[in-house]
């Protein structure tokens, strides 16, 4: 029996509508205790996390302005008119941020699913090739569903959307009042966010046959060009911006169907760029979000096609200044343009080329390709005759106009001293101004406050232009899911600690000190045999820098999910595969059941999988929900200094002994243990501080002595390299002498004796007294009493 309408013969007025057909499900794994968890299902797990990693609040604003009782002044943790205190209000705002982030991913997933079902059908199979059997780890874990076709994801999205509505309800005045419960809800929202991302990426991989474990996928994905200097502007250029790939895929299809691959450049910014190269490797990645304003102002695009998320709100106004028409393709970002979806394509092209309209809406992705390509090809010769980049004379006029009032510095998120660089440029020294190019996060706030109306962003870009034209790097195409066979190889070394960690470098480009930090973090950990996975903007920015031999970090390191690998997982939604890799370690290596078993798997990951997220330039609400989703699954994250503006961190206190108790699941014995990991979410001021912090957050209670020794070696070495001394807390991670770095064992034993009063048996080089717990290679750590196998007599 199939879905549809059944007419009953002989009964003219009777029609039977058959909606869902319940099929007997193949038994693939026993259902765990928490399928499709609701708001309170995992609250106990959240509270365990929040007890150890207490929410820390740094209000960005003292007031609540959400109802007409207000504004209410909550400073000093006062109550507002509705009774809410400052701490709960901060938790509420965090939940709101996670809501915005989660709905961006879930809305994207739903939109994508509609389009893909229409184009490929509900029954398009989810088949990721011979190396991937666990195709959707988050979906299995959270909902208990094993999807076989993209249509199976409708039920998953139904669950997500229902939960989002319930969580959003809690934000209303007169609902939740406890900061801890707001945090539990934020963690739930973060988990939903991770699930929505998985849905979005899985269906696009399945439908568009993006890299998976079929030939050419995984470690074998090709390298693509990255950088503002990679676009060949002698050809017509189409620039796609956003996160939703169907319109860009349609452009690529049109180019291929008409043999125009070498005649037209298809380039992208942000995650659409990642996903376009996954579909069409001839595409180029121009830049990450941080350079969007400058890429548009440079006028390299003959047509701009936007879909959704991370698009500048003033995109049409900006594009008009460079005579670039805009095609908007998504109902979430319409930008005031007229809907021309079903107009004759040639008529739309004519209007765009002749400048009769600044842009159009084309809401059917399958109608975008023809209009975009024809427009680019027809308008390119006209635009080449126009002057877009300022000339030297104009540059000099602007820099001389600056009188160093300092307003731009006060408006700049990074407080860049633009005025003094302008003054130098006025004397002929453009170097200081050019150096600001990479430090600038590309927001343009400086121009809003300039009393002389100097186009500051353009002036900086002009000063850096020779460098900009040379900006050419290489990144691997986003490879999507980590293979099950790779997990089989690295599961044991990760859990035992001999691969010292998995570093997930993710998120936006709101860096404190330029894009070079993205490269430095990647290189430092990959060189030390950590597994480095990247997504989104940081995956792009890490590709912009090169070593002394002119090779980028994707070129010097392999692309396997193994020690020393540098792996571009893909776009924002591909972050789900990083969760997926951690989950698969529990499933494939440790043989834990996944199905509806979130709490147990998160407990496993928190105690055993030395993974750490790094969102060094986190800016968006999506980054907030992404990090919170990682946190609920037991993965800590380090953010850059701008991340303090998210208002909330999850910080552990090693000095509070009661916070660091863990159970041995073998017999229920409770131990005090080392702070491993010490935090779930923490900000560092500089990259020098962040590097040892990231290494520290890879310690886990399950580390073997060999693994702990390797992790401690890197923690100490990074601290000495970047901070100039031993870390003050290194001794906390020592359980036995064999935990110590081999090359420095004797020296460190001496320090333990002299500085910490530990007792050492020097003859046998053993620690007799001192560590907070003994080392036991069979230790089976858990935070969940229900997992104790046999209670101690």
């Amino acid at each position, binding site marked *: 029996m199939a879905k549809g309408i059944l007419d009953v013969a002989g009964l003219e007025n009777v029609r039977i509508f058959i909606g869902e057909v319940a099929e007997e499900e193949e038994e693939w794994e026993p259902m765990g205790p928490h399928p499709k968890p609701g708001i309170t299902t995992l609250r106990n797990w959240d509270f365990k996390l929040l007890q150890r990693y207490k929410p820390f609040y740094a209000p960005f604003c003292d007031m609540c302005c959400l109802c007409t009782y207000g504004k209410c002044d909550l400073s000093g*943790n006062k109550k507002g008119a509705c009774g809410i205190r400052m701490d709960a209000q901060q938790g509420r705002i965090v939940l709101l941020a996670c809501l915005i982030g989660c709905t961006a991913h879930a809305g994207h997933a739903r939109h994508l699913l509609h389009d893909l079902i229409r184009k490929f059908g509900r029954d398009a199979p989810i088949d990721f090739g011979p190396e991937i059997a666990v195709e959707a780890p988050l979906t299995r874990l959270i909902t208990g569903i094993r999807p076989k076709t993209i249509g199976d994801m409708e039920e998953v999205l139904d669950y997500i959307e229902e939960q989002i509505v319930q969580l959003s309800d809690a934000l209303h005045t007169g609902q939740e009042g406890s900061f801890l419960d707001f945090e539990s809800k934020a963690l739930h929202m973060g988990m939903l966010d991770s699930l929505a991302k998985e849905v979005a990426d899985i269906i696009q991989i399945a439908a568009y046959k993006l890299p998976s474990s079929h030939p050419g996928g995984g470690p074998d994905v090709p390298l693509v060009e990255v950088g503002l200097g990679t676009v060949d502007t002698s050809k017509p250029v189409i620039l796609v911006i956003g996160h939703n790939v169907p319109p860009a895929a349609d452009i690529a299809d049109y180019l291929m169907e008409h043999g125009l691959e070498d005649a037209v450049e298809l380039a992208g910014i942000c995650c659409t760029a990642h996903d376009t190269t996954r579909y069409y490797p001839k595409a180029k990645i121009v830049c990450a979000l941080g350079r969007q304003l400058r890429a548009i102002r440079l006028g390299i695009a003959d047509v701009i096609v936007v879909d959704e998320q991370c698009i500048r709100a003033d995109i049409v106004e900006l594009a008009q200044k460079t005579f670039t028409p805009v095609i908007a393709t998504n109902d979430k970002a319409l930008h005031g343009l007229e809907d021309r979806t079903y107009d004759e394509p040639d008529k739309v092209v004519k209007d765009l080329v002749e400048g009769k309209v600044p842009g159009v809406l084309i809401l059917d992705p399958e109608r975008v390709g023809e209009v975009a390509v024809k427009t680019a090809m027809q308008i390119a010769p006209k635009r080449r005759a126009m002057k877009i980049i300022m000339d030297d004379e104009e540059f000099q006029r602007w820099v001389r106009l600056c009188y160093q009032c300092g307003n731009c*510095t006060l*408006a700049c998120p990074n407080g860049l001293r633009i005025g003094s660089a302008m003054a130098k440029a006025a004397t002929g020294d453009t170097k200081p101004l050019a150096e600001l190019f990479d430090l600038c996060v590309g927001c343009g706030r400086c121009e809003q*406050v300039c009393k002389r109306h100097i186009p500051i962003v353009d002036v900086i870009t002009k000063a850096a232009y020779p460098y900009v034209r040379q900006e050419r790097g290489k990144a691997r195409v986003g490879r999507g899911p980590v293979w099950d066979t790779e997990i089989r190889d690295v599961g044991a070394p990760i859990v035992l600690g001999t691969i010292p960690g998995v570093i997930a470098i993710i998120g936006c480009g709101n860096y404190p000190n330029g894009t070079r930090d993205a490269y430095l973090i990647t290189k430092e950990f990959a060189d030390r045999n950590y597994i480095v996975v990247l997504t989104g903007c940081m995956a792009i920015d890490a590709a912009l820098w090169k070593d002394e031999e002119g090779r980028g970090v994707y070129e010097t390191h392999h692309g396997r999910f193994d020690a020393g690998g540098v792996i571009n997982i893909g776009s924002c939604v591909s972050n789900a595969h990083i969760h997926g890799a951690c989950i698969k370690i529990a499933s494939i290596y440790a043989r834990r059941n996944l199905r509806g078993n979130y709490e147990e798997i998160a407990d496993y990951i928190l105690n055993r999988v030395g993974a750490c997220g790094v969102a060094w330039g986190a800016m968006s609400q999506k980054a907030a929900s992404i990090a919170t989703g990682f946190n609920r699954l037991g993965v800590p994250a380090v953010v850059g200094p701008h991340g303090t*503006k998210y208002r909330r961190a999850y910080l552990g*206190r090693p*000095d509070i002994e009661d916070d660091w108790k863990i159970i041995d699941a073998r017999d229920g014995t409770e131990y005090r243990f080392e702070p491993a990991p010490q935090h779930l979410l923490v900000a560092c001021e500089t990259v020098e501080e962040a590097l040892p912090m990231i290494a520290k957050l890879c310690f886990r209670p399950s580390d073997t002595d060999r693994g702990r020794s390797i992790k401690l070696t890197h923690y100490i070495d990074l601290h000495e390299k970047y901070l100039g*001394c031993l870390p003050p807390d290194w001794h906390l991670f020592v359980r036995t002498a064999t935990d110590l770095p081999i090359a420095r064992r004797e020296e460190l034993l001496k320090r333990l004796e002299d500085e910490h009063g530990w007792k050492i048996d020097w003859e046998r080089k053993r620690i007799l007294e001192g560590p907070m717990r003994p080392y036991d290679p069979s230790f089976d750590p858990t935070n969940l009493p229900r997992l104790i196998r046999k209670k101690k007599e």
Partner: protein
Amino acid sequence: MACEPFDIANVPGPAALGVVATPEAMASVVSSARRPLLVVGSEILRDDFYLDVAIEIGRKGIPIAATGHSIKGFVQKGYTDNVHIINLHELTNCLRDPEWRGLDGGGSYDVVIFFGILYYYASQMLSCIRNFCVRPLMRAISIDRYFHPNAAMSFPNFRPKDEDKYKEMLKKFVENIRR
């Protein structure tokens, strides 16, 4: 007296009325503190002068929390006696706990002095102190070259060309600390 925040839109609310204070007034607050703490960030490494200011304050018996990667400078100068390495998030988290044992086991602090810290990171931590370190009251002052609305007292914003004026104010601040 107040002035524009260094980040112009950083206007937290009606109670954030940090004042621009003279170095003498700030030194007086520090001099009369029961347990002051100097919190330094990585910006002190931009010029030896600032590192020397921090060390001079440390030599007056005020313990130093070295956040960011500022510890590198103290190690290079060979001054580490009362310098404690700690992340600024971690430190502020401890400061809001009146039961905290302090960096040296002597208990929490009543006055904290922010110096050489990235503006917006400092501002957020000062906001936490102002909002949550209220019983007992902890006073946070900033001797950075920025006006901080979340600090009880701070200097005005200094432009690069006024660096010497800023240095003079720091000298006066240090000279007037009596411990």
